[in-house]
């Protein structure tokens, strides 16, 4: 596709998102924010899965670390949202550093199982450390106080106000992750996915780079967690449950592992589809599974990957 078309497309999407924030009702705004938050989670996650070739089943732990980090900061330190977001992301990155240190020594199924095991440990810690995390009740009543920047005070309490905060971090994440994809670091990660022995013989400490990817993806998971807790105003240990870790995996698969925009499209499909299916039936999981199967088996390379393939084929003829 032509470069200008791509700019135009991004411009149109941005204009649409801003128009949405200015005009849509609370429910649509809520859904849009859920999509964006999930997209941040999945975009970061796909840096690890699609780019580096590591399948993690423990990223809910970092999502929860972000969410609990922000909540605890709000309760004990200051309710300033930016401080909470900063501390939440830092907590998630730090946790990812510790867990990743042990996990990146292994690959494939062993890596996946280790991340799963660590994820379960984090879940059980959050469940049991009642005095800090509130146990199974979680932490609640996290309100969105105004963002004060010196003399400027930006209220974010209302849905449409907070929408622009989420939009800002959503765009920031897209920008950062896009830059990472095109950077030497991103190229090295792709090299490690393709052939980690060769990467080592190209002069790269492969484990350190895997850990780097793990921490970066963990930090974005944490960012998603902080934004989610501000949206929902509460957090329970289930945020760190391993079933939550499956979400970015599915989202990346739906959209396309080997594409940059795959997780974006996947997030829209995931959230909207679930919302629609839930309207019609109580056992939404069954129908959701059926639809997922169809997408994953019917669209090899995900929705974005296979669409790009089709476009390429037709534009060549």
């Amino acid at each position, binding site marked *: 596709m032509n470069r200008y078309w791509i700019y135009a497309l991004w411009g149109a999407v941005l204009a649409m998102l801003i128009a949405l924030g200015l005009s849509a009702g609370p429910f649509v705004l809520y859904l849009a924010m859920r999509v964006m938050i999930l997209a941040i989670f999945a975009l970061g996650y796909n840096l690890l899965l699609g780019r580096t070739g590591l399948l993690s089943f423990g990223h809910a732990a970092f999502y929860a670390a972000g969410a609990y980090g922000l909540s605890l900061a709000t309760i004990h330190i200051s309710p300033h949202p930016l401080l909470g977001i900063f501390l939440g992301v830092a907590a998630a990155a730090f946790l990812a550093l510790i867990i990743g240190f042990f996990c990146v020594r292994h690959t494939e199924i062993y890596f996946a199982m280790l991340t799963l095991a660590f994820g379960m440990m984090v879940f059980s810690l959050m469940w049991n450390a009642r005095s800090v995390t509130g146990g199974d009740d979680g932490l609640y009543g996290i309100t969105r106080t105004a963002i004060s920047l010196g003399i400027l005070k930006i209220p974010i309490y209302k849905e449409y106000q907070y929408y622009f905060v989420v939009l800002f971090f959503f765009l920031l994440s897209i920008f950062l992750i896009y830059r990472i994809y095109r950077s030497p670091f991103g190229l090295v990660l*792709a090299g490690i996915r393709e052939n980690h022995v060769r990467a080592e013989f190209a002069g*790269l400490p492969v484990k350190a780079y895997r850990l780097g990817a793990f921490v970066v993806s963990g930090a974005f998971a944490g960012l998603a967690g902080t934004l989610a807790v501000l949206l929902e105003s509460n957090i329970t240990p289930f945020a760190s449950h391993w079933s939550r870790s499956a979400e970015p995996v599915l989202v990346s698969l739906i959209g396309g592992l080997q594409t940059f925009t795959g997780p974006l499209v996947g997030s829209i499909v995931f959230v909207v589809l679930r919302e629609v299916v839930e309207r019609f039936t109580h056992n939404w999981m069954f129908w959701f599974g059926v639809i997922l199967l169809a997408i994953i088996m019917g669209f090899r390379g995900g929705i974005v990957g296979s669409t790009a393939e089709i476009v390429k084929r037709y534009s060549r003829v």
Partner: protein
Amino acid sequence: MSETLLDVRKLNKAFGMVTAAKNLDFTFQRGVLTSVIGPNGAGKSTLINLLSGHLAPDSGEVWFQGRDITHEPVYRRVKQGLCRSFQVVNVFSNLTLFENVAIPVLAVRGKAHTLLKPVTAHKEVQADVERVLDRVGLSEQAHMPARALSHGDQRLLEVAIALAAKPRLLFLDEPTAGMNPVERTKILGNIRQVAGTGDVTFVIVEHDMDVVFSLSDRVIALHRGEIIADGTPEEIKMNPHVREVYLGEEVRI
């Protein structure tokens, strides 16, 4: 005039009952193109694996440019200038040729961890990559994925990746395996030309005796993990022990 690049001291390696390296003790000098020959199972590949850090020796030491690297990980050896290519095609298949070569260039230039600046913004990296691709004659295909290349060109790319890491000493593990005569001539020309500049000292493991005797300054013959002969190509050709070992092998010396 000769300067010792690699110094191998009493190197031993056994896999169970099989001895793959027995008391190996030798040096590689700068600028001396050495070939390692020997029948299958002689321990040639093990030797490369031991020296490049892929395998750890049971005992013995490896010194590179006056430094003990016996326990250094692979990537550190590469950064010091000790590289290798592989017997089978071992490239980044789904990446373009440019990217394939850019990875080692970024690694040795210490730019690989740069997070937010695009690869293309590093002009000196780009220049390096183009020079390496140009050297092996693959610059036309720079933006093709590696898997789209012919087998012979993939082997060339393999050598290009190894060269991109700016090695002082480069092991080539059967560089002509599976190549057609045209490709073979091309890669041998490349090796000769690069060796001629004096920047890179090659150590080649080869089955093809034509290649060995036309390229090498020195030949080491291995048998069951031991050095049975070490000398100029002429000396090796005349060596009765080598002839005995090779008797019945596919090669006639």
